[in-house]
C-alpha cells in the first residue's frame, strides 16, 4: 500500500465528524418530530449519516495507524479533536431550523460526494460512490420541506427565512480552503473548494427561489470547527454521544 499523506487524517475527520455530529443531532428528534413520517425521515437520514461516518472513521483510523478503531475515534476523542463543521453541531431549534440546517449540509455533502467519486484516493472514491445516492435522497427530502415551509403560510415563511439568516454565517466555513484542503487538492484527492461552492450555490439558490426565500447576504462572521475550535454546543452533544463508553469503558452489546 502506498504511503498515506500527512494531511489525509485531518481531511477524512472533517467529513466523517460532520456526518457523525449531524446524525447525533437528528437522533435527538426521535420520538419528538411533529409527525411520524418526519420522525422516520430524520431517523433514517441519521442512520445513513452514521453509516457514512463509520466507513470514513474506519479509514481514518487506518490512516492514523495507532491501533484505534472507528468506535475509539467516535467515543473517546475530546471535543477539540473533533473536526466537524460548526454548522452540524448547532442546536436543533424548531422543526424548520432543523430542516434548514439539514438542507444546507445535505446540499454540501451532495456536491462533495459527487466530486469525491473521482478522487485519486480510491478508498475515499469508493465510500463517496456508496454515499452519493443516499445523499441525493436526503437532499430531495430536506429541499421538499424547505419549499413547503418557505412557500407555505406567512408564519412558516418568516420562520424559515429567519432560520436561514441564523445559519448562513456558518456556511462560509464549508468553502474556505486552508492548508489541509490545498494539500488534498494538490494530489487530486479533493476537488477545488470553489467548485464545491459553485455546485452548492446552484442547488441552494434553485430551492430557495422555489421556496420564495431570499438568499442572505455574505457575512464576515467566521467559526472554524474544522480546526477543532467549536461552539459551546459540541461538548454537550458529545457528553450524550460518549456517555456510555466513558462510564462503562469497552462495553459492548
Amino acid at each position, binding site marked *: 500500500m502506498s504511503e498515506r499523506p500527512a494531511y489525509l487524517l485531518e481531511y477524512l475527520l472533517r467529513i466523517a465528524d460532520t456526518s457523525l455530529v449531524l446524525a447525533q443531532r437528528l437522533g435527538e428528534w426521535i420520538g419528538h418530530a411533529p409527525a411520524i413520517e418526519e420522525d422516520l425521515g430524520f431517523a433514517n437520514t441519521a442512520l445513513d449519516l452514521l453509516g*457514512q461516518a463509520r*466507513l470514513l472513521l474506519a479509514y481514518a483510523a487506518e490512516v492514523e495507524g495507532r491501533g484505534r478503531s472507528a468506535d475509539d475515534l467516535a467515543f473517546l476523542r475530546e471535543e477539540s479533536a473533533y473536526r466537524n463543521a460548526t454548522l452540524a453541531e448547532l442546536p436543533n431549534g424548531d422543526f424548520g431550523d432543523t430542516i434548514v440546517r439539514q438542507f444546507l449540509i445535505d446540499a454540501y455533502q451532495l456536491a462533495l460526494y459527487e466530486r469525491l467519486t473521482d478522487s485519486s484516493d480510491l478508498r475515499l472514491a469508493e465510500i463517496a460512490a456508496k454515499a452519493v445516492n443516499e445523499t441525493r435522497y436526503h437532499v*430531495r427530502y430536506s429541499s421538499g420541506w424547505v419549499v413547503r415551509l418557505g412557500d407555505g403560510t406567512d408564519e412558516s415563511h418568516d420562520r424559515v427565512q429567519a432560520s436561514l439568516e441564523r445559519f448562513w454565517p456558518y456556511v462560509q466555513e464549508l468553502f474556505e480552503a486552508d492548508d489541509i484542503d490545498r494539500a488534498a487538492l494538490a494530489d487530486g484527492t479533493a476537488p477545488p473548494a470553489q467548485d464545491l461552492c459553485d455546485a452548492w450555490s446552484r442547488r441552494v439558490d434553485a430551492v430557495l427561489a422555489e421556496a420564495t426565500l431570499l438568499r442572505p447576504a455574505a457575512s464576515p462572521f467566521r467559526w472554524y470547527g474544522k480546526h477543532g475550535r467549536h461552539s459551546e454546543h459540541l461538548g454537550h452533544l458529545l457528553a450524550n454521544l460518549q456517555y456510555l463508553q466513558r462510564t462503562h469503558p469497552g462495553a459492548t452489546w
Partner: protein
Amino acid sequence: MKAAGASPPTAGASARVARARAVLATVPDPEIPVLSVLDLGIVREVEETADGTLRVAVSPTYCGCPATTVIRADIAAALASAGLAPVRVVDVLSPPWSSAWITADGRRKLHRHGIAPPTSVPGEAAGTECPRCGSLDTELISEFGSTPCKALHRCRACREPFERFKCI
C-alpha cells in the same frame, strides 16, 4: 511457477460454488424475508480461494443498514450448516449497491408480497403501481418508511397505503 496459473477452478470447486449459490438463494433478508440475499443483489462474488476457503463478497445496501451484521452472520451460518465450511464473508463497497441490483425475480416477489418494487429510474416516484389493485393513481406519503430501504405510498383508487422499495 505453476503452468496452469495459481488456482485454476476445479470441478470440485465449481460444484461447491454452485451448491453455495443454491444455499444463498434460501437465505432471507432479515427485514424483507420474502427476498433472498441473491434476489436483493448484495452477493457480489462466491469463489473458492487457493486455501480452500469459500469466499463470499457482500455489498451493504445502505451505509448504515442495521441488518448488515445479521446478514453476514446468516450467510456464514447457512453455508456452514450445509457443510460448505470454511467460509469467509467479506464486505465490498464497489461497485456500490443500488436498488437497480435487485433481480427481476426479486421484483416479482416484492410485488406479490405487497411491496411496490423500485423502478429502474433512481429517485422516480411518479407512476408507482399499487401492488394491490394495479392502479397508477398513487401518491407518496413519506420518503421514509419502516426500514431504511422503503418509502410509504397510498393508492387513490383502492385507498390502501402500501410500501415501496426506495429507488436510489
